[in-house]
């Protein structure tokens, strides 16, 4: 009994903490854990988004210019990813991916490794993003007037120069609304990584809430963090779009 009392005194948070004590960034507050979770979440978003853009560019090029088997393969990929619920996709890819890599390693006689949760998360979300990004970029490229690309070819531009000088600047204003939507969806899909057990913002929040029993407070705090990041990126994408639309006539 005496030991319990001492423990109570040593740990003032257990008596009746205020909201600010609970959310303080230094232990015994949980704010630091939430912020660390938020930081790794943001890194997951950026990694997955960049991977998605790379897959999307390759996929769009493949769908528009590729041979028939390539087109069929890419069609299968985009259809499958868009038809299967994200949660199932993420869990399936997460296990299949880590399992597959370890089987590959054991085939070469290397002992199995623990796959870094961060890279698995980036890879899985990037694959999901890539399917949607393929469609967004394909649509944006198709919306470029053919004459512009033909004119570039007539000027003797090689494919890479043509892409850099003509296709990319013309594609960006068409693609940016879709790309902004995808950014919003990766910010929200990343919470699903919590179900697989990687400690990003959603799981960190659940741990903090479970430990302190202040469920409402912590989930509300996490919601505020997500909301602030979403609003900030809304502004950024708005600025980006008006930058790429400079020189275009204003819509009525």
């Amino acid at each position, binding site marked *: 009994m005496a030991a319990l009392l001492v423990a109570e005194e040593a740990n003032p948070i257990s008596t009746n903490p205020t909201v600010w004590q609970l959310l303080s960034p230094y232990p015994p507050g949980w704010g630091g854990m939430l912020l660390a979770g938020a930081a790794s979440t943001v890194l997951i978003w950026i990694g997955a988004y960049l991977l998605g853009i790379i897959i999307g560019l390759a996929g769009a090029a493949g769908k528009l210019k590729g041979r028939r088997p390539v087109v069929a393969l890419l069609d299968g990929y985009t259809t499958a990813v868009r*038809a*299967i*619920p*994200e*949660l*199932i996709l993420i*869990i*399936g890819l997460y*296990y*299949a991916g880590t*399992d597959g890599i370890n089987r590959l390693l054991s085939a070469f006689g290397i002992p199995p490794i623990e796959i870094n949760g961060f890279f698995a998360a980036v890879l899985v979300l990037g694959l999901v993003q890539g399917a949607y990004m393929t469609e967004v970029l394909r649509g944006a490229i198709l919306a470029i007037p053919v004459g512009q690309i033909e004119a570039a070819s007539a000027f003797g531009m090689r494919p890479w120069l043509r892409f850099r000088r003509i296709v990319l600047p013309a594609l960006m204003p068409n693609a940016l609304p879709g790309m902004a939507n995808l950014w*919003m969806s990766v*910010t*929200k*899909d*990343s*919470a*699903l990584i*919590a*179900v697989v057990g990687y400690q990003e913002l*959603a799981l960190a*929040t*659940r741990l903090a*809430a479970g430990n302190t*029993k202040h*469920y*409402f*407070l912590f*989930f*509300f705090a*996490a*919601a505020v963090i*997500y*909301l602030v990041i*979403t*609003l900030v990126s809304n502004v950024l994408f708005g600025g980006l779009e008006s930058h790429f639309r400079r020189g275009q006539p204003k819509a009525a």
Partner: protein
Amino acid sequence: MDFAWVSTYWPLIVAGAMQTVLLLAISVSFGFILAIGLALAQVSGTPWLRWLARGYCTLFRGTPLLIQLWLFYYGVGSFLPMVPGLRESILWPVVREGFFFAAVSFTLNYAAYEAEVLRGALLAVPKGELEAGRAFGMSRFTLLRRIWLPRAIRIALPTIGGEVVLQLKATPLAFTVTVMDLYAVAYKVRQDTLLVYEPLAVVTVFYVCLTLVITRAFRLVEMQVPIRR
């Protein structure tokens, strides 16, 4: 690949599919009603109402559904027993279940996305048609019931179909709050039989079939009222 477990778990899979469909039907139908109100408030409400509806949509569209679900289930759920009289009321068996919280948070979330779609559609109805209705002497409510809303829903129909499919793909989240939906069945099979991919594959087939049913149904409805070009 081993699918021998399907025969023993078949009733559970069907029950899970029922839960998933029920969750989808509840959230889509109630969410749609809520969305009409939210969209109208944004398009033609008083400044105060407009601000409120816009804030609601930003709030629910700006945060992950998983966080909303957990906020309701764990956060609001921990306050519910303190409501005087609720524990003794006939509502308690419903209100204490994870299904209730999943249904409520999915409905609120769907309404926010749907309201945004409907807002655009309400603004896309040609002005002349509304003016013609007013010239006929229709009251505001009649105009809304007979012209504005039906036209807007028809314009938004393809997008609504997409939103319903997205909502279907969001329902597996309910498993995190103890709802025995399709995905939860796959999870249980994995725990019982230690098979990882087979249950996921079977459940995926179910989801894809449901998606096909939804898209077909919306195509049928769209064909009933063709848009003239």
